[in-house]
């Protein structure tokens, strides 16, 4: 089975736009949506309301930088310092090109850093590229299973 994509996004508009973009990219991966950093960590750690979810990491985490409670950078730090989560591909999605965020993200070991383009077509393209690269094409680290839909 194809591993899901974990989308961490608090803003409902961004959420809707990202989901539309993902659907346009024709990815078959399931998209799990969590709404803030704390919830993302609960999902990844399989605790709280996600305690009962099946084991296994998502194919990729699309992480918004600015999130309520625990922000994107904090989530990233936790992922990189947790043994089972360390290899997980994380793509930071952000509204701006703030230098400090970029630097901090790469310091913390982000796999990609994407500034959400204002133009929607571009945004769709960016999301599609990301999805294909990280969820499909990229050789996942050991522990993740790649599943290619038969016939595709």
């Amino acid at each position, binding site marked *: 089975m194809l591993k899901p994509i974990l989308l961490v996004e*608090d*803003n*409902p*508009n*961004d959420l*809707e*736009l990202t989901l*539309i973009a993902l659907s346009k990219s024709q990815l078959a991966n399931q998209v799990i949506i969590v*709404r*803030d950093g*704390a919830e993302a960590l609960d999902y990844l750690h399989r605790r709280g309301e996600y305690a009962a979810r099946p084991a296994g990491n998502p194919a990729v985490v699309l992480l918004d*930088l*600015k999130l*309520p*409670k*625990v922000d994107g950078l904090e989530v990233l730090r936790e992922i990189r310092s947790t043994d089972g989560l360390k290899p997980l591909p994380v793509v930071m999605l*952000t*509204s*701006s*090109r*703030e230098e*400090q965020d970029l630097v901090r993200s790469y310091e913390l070991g982000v796999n990609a850093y994407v500034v*959400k*383009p*204002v*133009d*929607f*077509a571009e*945004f769709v393209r960016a999301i599609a590229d990301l999805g294909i690269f990280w969820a499909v094409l990229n050789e996942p680290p050991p522990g993740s299973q790649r599943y290619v839909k038969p016939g595709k």
Partner: protein
Amino acid sequence: MTQAAAPVLDLSTCDKEPIRTPGSIQPHGFLLTLAADLTVLQASANLGDWSGVAAGDAIGRPLADVIGAAAAQRIAPELAAGLGPRPLYVGTIATGTGRHVDVLAHHWDGVTIAEFEAVDRAEPADFRNLYPLIGDFLLKVNDTGSIESLARLACQHVRSVTGFGRVLVYRFDTDGHGHVMAEARDERCHSYMGQRFPAADIPAEARELYMLSRIRLIRDATYTPSALVPPLNPATGKANDLSFAALRSVSPVHLQYMRNMNTLASMSVSLVVKGKLWGLISCHNEGPAAVAFDKRTACEQLGQILALCIESREDAAELQFRLEVRRTMVSMLAGLTQGSDFIENLANVFPDLLRFARAAGVAIVVDDRILTYGDTPDQDDIRSLVDWLAQHDRGDVFHTDKLSALYAPAEHMIRNASGLLAMPISRIHKHYLLWFRPEYVHTIEWAGNPHAKEATPGAPAQLSPRTSFAAWRETIHGTSQPWHGGEIELALEFRTALLGIALERAEQMAELAEELGRANKELEAFSYSVSHDLRAPLRHIVGFADLLLESAGSEDGQQRQRFLKNIKDAARLAGKLVDDLLSFSQMGRASLHPTTVDMNDLVAACLDKLVLETRGRNIEWDIGPLPTVWADPTFLHLALVNLLSNAVKFTGQRDPAVIRVSAEDHPAETVFHVADNGAGFNMEYVHKLFGVFQRLHRMEDFQGTGIGLANVRRIVERHNGRVWARSVQGESATFSFALPKQTNL
């Protein structure tokens, strides 16, 4: 000359002369020492001249045998009464040889000392004559301003009482030199007015004795002393202490000094001001002069009154002086708190600085920066001087009226820097405030050369005090007017005040730095937020608009509606963000206009403003009695609206919602709480609560830009208060803020 009778002395032992225990008396009377039963213990060798009983024969016999039964009987009761160390007049009697004597007695050194002093009257001394004299002096004292004129008045009175040819008042300067400041004289005597007598003229022991015994008469400097028989006091086994005896023989050195001065009779009255020998009333007469005890008493009292007057005048003058200096200091200090640059502030009060220390030049030295005003040495000289000072001062105010004597390079700065008052104004750095006084060239008229008290060349090796009293002029170079004690003390006080100001300034700087740091951080957060949060709604607008365009003609009308609504919401949010950001930045810049605010009124006004948000809601308001505070009402209103609107917002799911506003009174601050039974928040994230654009809830759960609480914090902190919050998630939240009571907003 009686020189032969005097012990041979030299100057170096002058201070050690036994002036209190000379072993002899002046022979214008006789002296007996008596046991308690009035048995004669000792007698002066000249007793026989007066009583017909030789001194040697008198020893061991009752007083009556020596001075006659009648006389002894008259004075016995007085002698038996408690005598003190000061001679007391006990009567006037006739001696065996028919001469009249005043009898003075005092008890000292274990014996009763009875002195019989020749007078030219038979009747007892009448002290009533003194009262008009003293009264007259007192009367005039009140109309007399300066110490000089008071002293002149005293001279005139003393002269009229005693008939001496010259009466002068001289005061001792700090070095002990005497300066003649007032004089009354017979025109045949030459004047000593304005002259100075070197300190060496009056040895230390003599000065001490002047303190103890306030009057001393030498009736005839050519006298031959009359020794006591036996020479030792049987009560002590030592030479008698005649400190208080009126007839005490004086040092042969002094007698020669007098003869050199062409003065055969002299009398001194001590002027003791504040327990110190301030000066003397000194009386000279060319020929021998008798001044009876009653007259001496009058002079002594005049001296005491004069001393009291001097004391009060000096106190008043000192007070006036200090008041003036302090006034200058206060006006300077007021000027020093004006601007922000401490050094410039100092420079702005340069004229006051000069006046403060009665200086001609002033310099402020701060590291390599030197600001000068008035007449000062040039910058390089000041720089070297400061280097020298930094090595030599002990962190205190340094002052000298002869800089060149301590610091050789000052030799060429004598013109404008003979006097220096230096004040370090930092404990760490080489920062100084320097006052300069110019050279004060002046001439001193010495009554004799103070630097050469030696005998005339070729004179015998034995002691020869000053032989010349011809005025000797000395021009003093390289010194300034001396610094006044009050100036030094107030300079110290000024320094403390300066350090206080500097310290306060440092604190202000630290506060400012902190404030700046915070403002900077806020600014960063601000620009960060603008780039994130403001961009998001724009992107949403474009995104949904693109989607709308793309789906044009498609049948999903519901989806189009939602896209349109999203666009509208995003646009509205963008507008609100801009508004909130603007108000937030204004909050940091606008100045506060604090006043007394009744919090009850303020809360009521806030509730009015929330009427739109509370419409249709079931809210139980519990507003406690609230105090008044000192705050800016507009700002505080904004903060309260934010808190109350939050409470309304987060109790959206409650029926009823309960919102409570209460206050607590503490000694230093007033604490307010806004508590609700709403959704609350996770205490884990409480530290983010008051940050700009921090949200702890999803957008669709609770609308907001994330600026409200940042505003609250900013407002309260600008009032020097603090904010905090507590919550049980899902049950309640309490937002609190404290406003200080004593605040200098």
